[in-house]
């Protein structure tokens, strides 16, 4: 599992977590915790694409594989704090919720947002991945050698 947590840049970790959350989940957790703060759009939600690159042979020269859909937005809270979101898919409401969480995580509200939104998201992501990994592990082949006759 790729670990995006970077001690020097916790914002990178939470933005990555928000981008990969299932549809509607960030909004549900945020709204379950606090009324939404006022904000103004710096960039209203916008749907576009990102060209996904890969490497020849996994490690060599890059090539363009194909695109994926992405929604992005940016907003400013009344206190002036700016939140950004870049998330997979065509999900404007989710991008708004993600940008709000990103902005709030840079304010004094950070500790409670961390425990009300980010911690459950991380736990759910871990549970999803480990369930899949356990199913994969159950299909791992255990070889055993049949005794061969010597004659």
């Amino acid at each position: 599992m790729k670990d995006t947590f970077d001690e020097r840049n916790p914002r990178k970790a939470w933005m990555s977590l928000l981008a990969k959350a299932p549809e509607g989940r960030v909004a549900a957790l945020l709204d379950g915790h606090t009324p939404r703060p006022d904000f103004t759009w710096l960039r209203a939600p916008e749907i576009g694409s990102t060209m996904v690159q890969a490497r020849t042979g996994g490690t060599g020269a890059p090539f363009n594989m194909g695109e994926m859909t992405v929604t992005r937005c940016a907003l400013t809270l009344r206190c002036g704090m700016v939140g950004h979101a870049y998330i997979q898919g065509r999900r404007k409401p989710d991008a708004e919720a993600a940008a709000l969480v990103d902005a709030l995580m840079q304010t004094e509200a950070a500790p409670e947002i961390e425990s009300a939104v980010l911690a459950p998201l991380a736990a759910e992501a871990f549970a999803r991945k480990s369930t899949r990994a356990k199913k994969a592990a159950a299909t791992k082949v255990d070889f055993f050698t049949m005794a061969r006759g010597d004659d």
Partner: protein
Amino acid sequence: MYVAVKGGERAIENAHAWLAEERRGDATVTELSVVQIREQLSLAVNRVMAEGSLYDPDLAALAIKQARGDLIEAIFLIRAYRTTLPRFGSSEPVDTGSMECDRRISATFKDLPGGQILGPTFDYTHRLLDFKLAADGEVTEAPTRATSATPVPHVTDFLNREGLIEEAPHDDTEPPDLTREPLEMPANRALRLQALTRSDEGFTLGLAYSTQRGYARNHAFVGELRIGAVAVEMDIPELGFSIDIGEVTLTECETVNQFKGSKTEPPQFTRGYGLVFGQSERKAISMALVDRALRWEELGEDNVGAPAQDTEFVLYHADNIQATGFLEHIKLPHYVDFQSELELVRKLRREAGADQVREAAE
């Protein structure tokens, strides 16, 4: 050439209305939802994403519904939609070495680090129709087993250690992009791989099969096949750092091929590479075989004139949307063209007839 013709508007409207009705089928049968297609016809969804060259399972499922299950029509819809999207940027190259593998097998090494993980495969099924699926049936949950924290390295990594296989050295050359620049020859490997990953599965499979049957045979083994999710990381200029913007499921195939060596290279194994959106292993293996066949020139092999060695032939005919666009346009009105052909044939026949009359007279 075809020309704009007036008339037929009502016929066209009525044809489309009937199409909508036929798409729906028997109205007493429950309608399929897009989510059902996404979840239950996921391999069709994967193919539409791969060849439509846009990773978005919901859109691919919608396209399949709209196209009545005609996957090339669905791919066409996705390609058309794709052109309407502003591009925000390019990702960092994905790291398939850190893939969370649902499946990972090697046909060359039995005991490899990380093990042989079969995953949700059709392999070893008996290919007998399962009539239980025709009835409503609950599915039992798949068994689980504790995971071990052992890494799952690429098979080629440990062949590399002995120097027995060519390496794919790190390189950061900006790749060409055939969605921005027309596909032109000569095509370097990055451009070929881009064209192949979105190529028609049937065409690519046929070419790959031709190499196995002896048309530019290169003795491919599936060194490794892995399927799973990888994070997509993109640099965000307004932030000054990169973040994961999402996750895609990919199928990766690395072939290990016999190579006798050349003037510049010692005898060693060479590699073919396939990487495709979604769980698409037939396509990924086919892509790797065709990629390897197209590498004859850089590896100093002979051109035996096989179709799979002909870059221009392969790349200019592999795209099913280009192909179907040109093929299907001939059913559109060509009245003027045909009129002139008619005139020509009549004229030729008149002249021939006159000659015959003359010959008879002589």
